Each structure stands twice: as C-alpha cells, then as structure tokens.
C-alpha cells in the first residue's frame, strides 16, 4: 500500500464547500455562536455577511434560532463546538429540531477529543450516544476530505434534521477517485476476509493504516468507513460480519452508545457473532494530552489496533482448535 496522502482538516473542507454552495444559494444560512474561528468560517462571514447569523455564546438560542430559520425555508447550518452544541443545546435539538421536524443541519466542530489538552469540558464523547437516543435526527461522521465535501453537499438537500460531526486534524485521503458517497451507505476502504475494522470519523485513517500493518503480517483486514450512524448501514455491517472471524470497532467517542454499541446491538440481534472488540474512550476520567496522545493512551494507533485485531483473531483460532 502507498502511504496515505495528507489533506486538509475536515472543518476546512466543510467551510470551503459551504462557501461555494452559499454563493449560489442565498437561502443558505450559517448560524454561529462566536464559533466562526473554530469553524473556519471567518472567510464565509467576510464574503457573505448577510448569510451568517451570529448569536454569541448561546448554544440554546443557536439551535432555537436555527429551527425558526429552517421553519421559514432557509437552508440552515448551525455550527458550534460539538461539546457545547450537543450538551448545552440538547433540549433544543430534541424538541425544536428533531421533534418539530425542522431540517436544521447541526454541525458539531472540533468533536471528540479534537481539543485535546483543553480537557473534558471541551471533549464530546457523548454526542453520538445522546443523539442516537433521539428520534428523527440523522448522524454523519465523515472520515476524510472527500467524505466531508460529499456530506455537506448531500446535507443541503437532506429532508430531515442532520448532525454532522467534524474534527480539526488534517486528514489523509482515503478514497480512490470515483468513490460514491451516499448518506446511510458505508464505504469500504480496504477489502479483507480475516478481520474487519469498522470505524468512523478521524479514526478511519488509523484503521486503514492498521489494516496495512496486518497485511504485512499476512492478515487480510476489511476496513469500513461507517460515516453514517443513522440511518445505519445494517446490510454492509452484516455482510462484512458474516465474512470475517473478528471485528474491531474504533471511534473517537465513549465506548458506550457510539459506533461499537450500534454494531454489537445489530450483530447480537441478528445472531451473527464474530469475535468483537470495541475500541474507544472508556468510562473513566479521560487521560489528558493532545488528541494523538489521548489516542495512543487508549490504543487508537495503527500498531495498537493491528495488535488488538491480531490477538482477537488468534483467540478465535485457538478457540476453534
């Protein structure tokens, strides 16, 4: 495998794409909570000042105003750090957007542990769990620049409330030209039959690198970017799970209520039970440091994931004997 080429932060792709779309759609509005810097929307605000609605540091109002704008037919992106948007603004997300069926695109920026050493106040390791428990909001966690651009373009026409979760690290390009992004359809990054690495967001590239390490050891690893948690691509996960002997899920989220939980629930109820490990942030006082250091602490590195997958696969072989 060729080393992956580094692209831009997904948040930058988000703002670049949004600016292009907004230039030809004056109904496209961005609502910000003093968050245009983090959201890389300074240029947007300068070029299209009439299409940005600032509410100050007020996430509840951010979501409520966005719902009102959407009710009036505007194409609304409400942008705020994921940690605040999905906690401070959660009741507004639940009632004003999801329950009221107002098609707001909520954009959680600097998600997961993107803010690293700023600490737990600035981490969002709960957002996917709480939003999965709320009816009528689709959830998209793109992995790379291609997925992000495609997700933003798809979001414009999306008929339901949508949560888009983005990080701030420059991401490697994962897809060959011509890849087809559809909300709700997982994308295969690597094809393999021994183990599967199921990931979303900024952990997908780590899973892909882990798969390359496994390949060098003679282990064939499947890698899926499950960029949409809702609607969940059950068919792709089940098809993969039936082919492989072991699955490792990996996510920049609590191990409770995110991708791993979703996969486990599906597989158990379908009676498809390869060996399974859920890798993410455990239920403990979160280790402090940069995103990379936090990832390393919790085994979210190519080497650690490869080892986890190999041990899990080995355990199934021992069991089989």
């Amino acid at each position: 495998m060729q080393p992956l080429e580094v692209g831009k932060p997904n948040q930058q792709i988000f703002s670049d794409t949004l600016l292009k779309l907004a230039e030809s759609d004056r109904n496209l509005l961005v609502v910000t909570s003093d968050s245009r810097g983090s959201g890389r929307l300074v240029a947007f605000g300068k070029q299209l000042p009439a299409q940005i609605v600032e509410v100050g540091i007020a996430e509840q109002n951010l979501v409520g105003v966005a719902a009102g704008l959407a009710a009036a037919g505007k194409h609304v992106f409400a942008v705020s750090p994921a940690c605040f948007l999905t906690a401070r603004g959660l009741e507004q997300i639940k009632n004003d957007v999801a329950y009221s069926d107002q098609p707001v695109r909520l954009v959680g920026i600097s998600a997961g542990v993107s803010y690293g050493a700023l600490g737990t106040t600035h981490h969002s390791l709960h957002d996917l769990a709480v939003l999965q428990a709320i009816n009528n909001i689709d959830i998209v966690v793109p992995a790379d620049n291609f997925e992000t651009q495609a997700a933003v373009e798809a979001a414009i026409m999306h008929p339901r409330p949508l949560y888009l979760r983005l990080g701030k690290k420059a991401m490697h390009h994962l897809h060959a030209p011509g890849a087809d992004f559809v909300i709700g359809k997982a994308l295969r990054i690597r094809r393999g039959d021994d183990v599967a690495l199921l990931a979303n967001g900024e952990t997908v590239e780590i899973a892909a690198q882990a798969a390359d390490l496994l390949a060098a050891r003679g282990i064939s690893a499947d890698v899926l970017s499950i960029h949409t948690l809702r609607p969940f691509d059950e068919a792709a996960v089940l098809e993969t799970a039936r082919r492989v002997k072991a699955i490792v899920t990996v996510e920049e989220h609590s191990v409770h209520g995110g991708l791993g939980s979703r996969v486990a629930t599906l597989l158990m109820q379908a009676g498809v039970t390869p060996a399974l490990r859920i890798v993410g942030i455990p239920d403990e006082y979160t280790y402090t440091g940069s995103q990379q250091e936090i990832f390393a602490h919790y085994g979210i590195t190519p080497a650690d994931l490869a080892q986890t997958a190999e041990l899990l696969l080995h355990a199934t072989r021992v069991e089989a004997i």
Partner: protein
Amino acid sequence: MQIPELERKSIEYRKTILSSIAQAGAGHTGGSLSCTDILNVLYNAVMRVDPHNPNRSERDRYIHSKGHSVEALYTVLADKGFFPAEKLATMGRGGSHWVGHPTRKVAGVEQNTGALGHGLSVAVGMAIAAKQDGLAHRVFTLMGDGELTEGSIWEASMSAAFYKLDNLIVIIDRNTLQITGRTENVMALEPLAERFSAFGYAVRTVDGNDVAALVDTFAQIPFEPGKPNLVIARTTKGKGVSFIEDAADWHHHVPTAAELTTALAELDQAEQRRQERYATA
C-alpha cells in the same frame, strides 16, 4: 371582529376549555383560562391566518411557547376552523395528535412546544428570516411568566434586540402564579417591564383579560421601529370562574363533574350579564 363578539367568544372558549379538560381528565386549567382572551384577540382581531390554507406563506406566525396551556390554543384553532371541533374530544386519548402540548401534527400549530423557554428563540429565527426576505408577516409568541426564569429567554431576547426585530411580538401571560405559588416567591421577576426594556424591547403593559384593551394595544404594533415588541399582559390565572381564579392549586387541577357544572353556570351567567350590558347600552 367587534368587541362584543370577542367578549362572547372568550366566554364560549372558557366553557369549551373546561369541558375539554374535564373530558380528557387532564389539562392545564389555570393557565389556559388566563391566556384565553389573548389568544381570542390574536386569532380573531390581530393575526392574519388562513384556516383553509394553514401554510399560506403570508400568514402571521404564532408560537405557543407556554405549551402547557394547549387547551386554550386547541379551542381557538378549532373555532377558527383549522380542524373539526370534534377533535377536541380526542384530547389525551391514545393515538390522538391532540396531546398535552402542541405539535405540528395539528393544523395551525407552527412548532412543537412544551419544554419552557424554547418558543422565543424559534420566533426570533422566523422573524430574522422574514426580515431577510423582506416579507411583511409578523411573528407572535406567548410566554408564561413562570417560564421567564429559563436562561434561554434572555439569550433569545438579546438576539431579538440585536437584529432589530420589530416584526416580533412577544406576549407575557403575567398571571403571577406558577405551580409552586407566586412567581415573586418562587424566583422574583420584577421589575419585569424595566428588565425587558433594558434588553432592548419596546414594552407595553395591558390588562390581558380585557379584549378591548388588548385590541387597542396590538393595533399599535410596531411600538417603536427597530425594536422588538413586548406586551406584558396582566392576567388572572383561572380567569372567569370564581373558585379557579388566582389559585395555584388549579395549575393542572381537573374540574370534577360538580365543579364543571358550577363553572359552566358561572360562565352562562357572565354571558347573560354581557348581553344585558349591551342591551342596556
């Protein structure tokens, strides 16, 4: 609509509200009766709405932020013809969309409400959109006074003034009671007019149970160009029925059959007096 007819409707609405709550076995009696005259005046004398085309783009928008007083809203919407009045009999029944807080499943309802402190932000968003698009419609929202301790109200208020939303009309149902007791004893709100003025509203205070006074006040909108409008409607919780008036216990107390009979008789007497008053005049 003329004042005598508005007064007649208020009495009729109160009878329907009480009967519906009694039939459903649940409801917010006190708050629905306090805001009856406000909704009556808004829907019959102020707002441009089209019950036969509820989503007509030119319509004025109404957000029922004090969502618990939904029985008053359902009663007025039914009377306006947004849906058949028989639907009121399904309130609170399994499978009915006429649930205890308004939802967009019911024609005429713009936004699902019920968690307090939400309506104003949504109304602000709608008003910003109308301004941006140069549309003439207005956005009304009714909040309870107990609701005003929600911090989100003050977030939204800052943005209402910042965006100079003189197409936004915020009404406070100032009945001075919430479920625990007097608002001033639970968490003091006063000086309310000064507080809202300081946040940038053009504020008017009115007797919120006097339809003529309400009509007169709303006729003055916009109160000041470039400022959001705020009406403090002084009301009596449980207005119209002697033993329900100004009693915190009636926040969501459901009238018994005997209480309903007495209450309806009181309202019939009020209608009798109203007719006599105009006959004399």
